[in-house]
């Protein structure tokens, strides 16, 4: 089964606008994490939300989690050109494993 599917696949906005990316998953989770990847670089952890949390904030980032719908959203407010990157959600399943399952990602382009 496919886990952690983001939409949209690509998003282009103007600087100052908000960007919203969505992620859906299929199995039960322990937590859900969002990562950013600049072109050709590594994955930078942004925020982690536990399965018993509904919303979390970190600076300009807001993450929501709806476990009944098995979905999460990442909102970046007041976007900047430097936010241009790919954004991935990754789920950590229930049980005792430590395997992260990634989605295909959303490519965000913020135009100056």
């Amino acid at each position, binding site marked *: 089964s496919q886990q952690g599917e983001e939409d949209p696949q690509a998003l282009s906005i103007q600087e100052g606008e908000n960007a919203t990316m969505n992620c859906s998953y299929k199995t039960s989770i322990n937590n859900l994490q969002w990562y950013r990847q600049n072109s050709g*670089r590594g994955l930078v952890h942004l925020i982690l939300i536990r399965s018993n949390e509904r919303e979390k904030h970190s600076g300009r980032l807001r993450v929501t989690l709806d476990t009944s719908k098995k979905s999460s959203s990442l909102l970046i407010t007041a976007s900047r050109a430097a936010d241009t990157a790919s954004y991935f959600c990754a789920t*950590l399943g229930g049980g005792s494993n*430590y395997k992260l399952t990634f989605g295909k990602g959303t490519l965000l382009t913020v135009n100056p």
Partner: protein
Amino acid sequence: EPEVTQTPSHQVTQMGQEVILRCVPISNHLYFYWYRQILGQKVEFLVSFYNNEISEKSEIFDDQFSVERPDGSNFTLKIRSTKLEDSAMYFCASSPKDRYQPQHFGDGTRLSIL
């Protein structure tokens, strides 16, 4: 802030050759991982390592792959006989034992098999 470091950043190897990718995880972390990302595709889990042994591995991680922690700081991924389809970006990550702590990733090694 401590970070995961990987070497080399780019490795070009002939098909059939052995390759070793190296990683230095964050020093107080206890879990270590390898993931790979084929160009344009998802990041895929390969293996997790804890207490000097593999704790979980994916179907991708077949007998051609092995991992080792040869000393107190390095963590390596070896591919014994590389295939064209092994061409990918390989990411090392590490984390504390607490599952509610994030995994921290290195910048990756781009492996190109000719």
